[in-house]
């Protein structure tokens, strides 16, 4: 994106850069022109990178002390908590880090939904993001199995059993996944291996995600393209770096509060009971970040259809750039979409809530309505909205509303309008 060729100053720099243009890359990253009107919802990309690195670093240390064996896993976790120097800190950061990671990724995804960041020319960024999200769910699920508590064991049993819904080969696949006839030691060791592998896959995809981002550049709150880089953008460093750092620190305060003062609030008490294949817990619930999908799964009476519905709920997101037919990106200029957006947010929260409740009576009914609405939003409302909606006039450039402009354009200045709508 840089509009000038970069040449290193020193001779050694030139020699090196001709052979491996690392300095050009570093220069691109610091100079990367970023729309100057980005708001704080755009800081979550940096926050997510921090989360990933934190999980990898703490995870490596944990892996040095953890023993992936059905008879020893639970003991080794207690060993980490008691006898490893600062083991309790590392484990609590890792366990709560998973939740913080999902909190950040949900904000990141919903930011994208609001400002239409998935639309052309950013479809590939979006699809890579969905793959990262899928891998995150797989990694988190397998990570939750490793302490080998009751929820680990029974969660693993429930989720792997979903594959048995596949006609003909389902049962065979489940046996293959387990490495036996029930969730047992072979399951644990392979989950550990995959849990170790996936974060590095995610890291690779994050590089692609950022690379794909740096081709068209960032979307922004008013959702129009950068017209004049010199006027509409600021260099990534120091402007965005310092702003991201500030937001990250705020995020870390929340993170630290969980780690140091309520480290177990997001987990389930049953996971401090060692796995016992003979005793089933009263309610088997996944971690909070998977609850909306769990609700969708349980809202369909047929097992196979339930699994299909759950998977479709995720994969439908990948088709979003084509399901949303509106040419306007930002919801700031789409008054109707804005309302449907908030209904969707509420819908997903409701799904999360009923996912934690027993699937019966009123809860089941609510889950069914919410599931139907979820699909309705993506398959019916979004495609029609693009044709029917009367959008507001879009400013001519990023600078114009930023610098004031007419009263109409001032509306786009930042998202203070949105605040009123909330």
């Amino acid at each position, binding site marked *: 994106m840089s509009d000038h060729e970069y040449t290193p100053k020193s001779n050694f720099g030139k020699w090196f850069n001709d052979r491996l243009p690392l300095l050009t890359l570093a220069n691109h990253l610091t100079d990367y022109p970023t729309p100057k009107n980005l708001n704080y919802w755009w800081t979550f990309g940096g926050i997510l990178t921090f989360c990933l690195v934190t999980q990898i670093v703490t995870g490596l240390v944990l892996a040095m002390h953890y023993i992936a064996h059905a008879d020893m896993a639970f003991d080794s976790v207690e060993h980490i*908590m008691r006898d490893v120097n600062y083991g309790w800190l590392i484990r609590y950061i890792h366990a709560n880090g998973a939740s913080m990671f999902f909190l950040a990724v949900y904000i990141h995804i919903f930011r994208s939904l609001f400002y239409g960041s998935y639309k052309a020319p950013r479809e590939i960024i979006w699809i890579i993001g969905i793959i990262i999200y899928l891998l995150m769910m797989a990694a988190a699920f397998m990570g939750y199995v490793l302490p080998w508590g009751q929820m680990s064991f029974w969660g693993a049993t429930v989720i792997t059993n979903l594959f048995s819904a596949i006609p003909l080969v389902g049962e065979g696949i489940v046996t293959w996944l387990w490495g036996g006839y029930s969730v047992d030691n072979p399951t644990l060791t392979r989950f550990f291996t995959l849990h170790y592998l996936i974060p590095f896959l995610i890291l690779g995809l994050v590089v692609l995600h950022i690379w794909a981002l740096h081709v068209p550049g960032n979307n922004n709150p008013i959702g129009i393209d950068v017209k004049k880089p010199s006027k509409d953008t600021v260099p990534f460093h120091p402007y965005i770096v310092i*702003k991201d750092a500030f937001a990250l620190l705020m995020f870390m305060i929340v993170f*630290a*509060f969980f780690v140091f003062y309520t480290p177990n609030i997001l987990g389930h*008490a049953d996971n*401090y009971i060692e796995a016992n294949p003979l005793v089933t817990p009263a309610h088997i619930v996944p971690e909070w970040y998977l609850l909306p999908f769990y609700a969708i799964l349980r809202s369909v009476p047929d097992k196979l259809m339930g699994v299909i519905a759950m998977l479709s709920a995720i994969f439908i997101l990948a088709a979003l750039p084509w399901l949303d037919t509106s040419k306007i990106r930002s919801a700031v200029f789409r008054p109707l979409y804005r309302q449907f957006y908030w209904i969707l947010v509420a819908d997903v929260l409701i799904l999360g809530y009923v996912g934690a409740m027993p699937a019966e009576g009123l809860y089941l009914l609510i889950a069914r309505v919410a599931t139907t609405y979820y699909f309705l939003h993506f398959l019916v409302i979004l495609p029609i909205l693009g044709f029917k909606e009367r959008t507001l006039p879009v400013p001519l450039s990023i600078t114009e509303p930023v*610098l004031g402009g007419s009263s109409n354009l001032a509306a786009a200045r930042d998202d203070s309008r949105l605040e009123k709508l909330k």
Partner: protein
Amino acid sequence: MKKFLKLFFYTLFLISFLPQVYAAEKVEYLTTDWSFKGLFGKFDRSALQRGYHVYTEVCSSCHSMKYLSYRNLAQEGGPEFTEAEAKAIAASFEVTDGPNSDGEMFTRPGKLSDKFVMPYENVKAAQAANGGAYPPDMSVLVKARGGGVDYIYSLLQGYEDPPAGVILDDGVYYNKYMYGNKIKMANQLSDGLIEYSDGTKATVEQMSKDVTTFLMWAAEPHLESRHKMGFKAIVYLIILTILVYFSMKRIWSRIETKV
């Protein structure tokens, strides 16, 4: 910026409500002034020592604590018995060791490095001795129960005569805080059951409080250093956040856009 701060505080506010939401789902548990709660929460040393006393005299005949070692009793942030006291406690237990050079197992007095001696050889033996119910290991018991310390504290004081119409089998007791109200552990505590060496009156309430405090420590032996470090970490983060905020303001003042 204003909006961001507002949202930040809403989040904190919501988070502060989480514990209540979770606690509200079941019966109202008894509670007491736990010294280890809150930002600066610490264990009450004498309560931990008394709690250990209750554990050895009462609970330990059925409940194991397999993740604790006698050395833990002398560790910082725990009951903090002196090393000599902890050694004496360890030595009062017979530990099976071996095999020796003749291939025989033998018993010897316990050492600081030994784990707490288990009341039963294995789970099956524990079940056989307790009418089929396994007395759970108490090392992480507080964290393994939804209500946490309040639940354990209530359960110990929750024994009642069953209401009319509730018929209990032999070896099953009625406890108003137990899930389903039926428990296989008989009421263990009664006023004056043990004699505290520090002269504290051993009421049921006092013993429940002491032993629950002890169990909390057993489940979270590093709670005190966690709270201490947490406070420092958060103060550090807040100061750094303020500094970065002003740097950010300064850097962004070079252009017209506000942050």
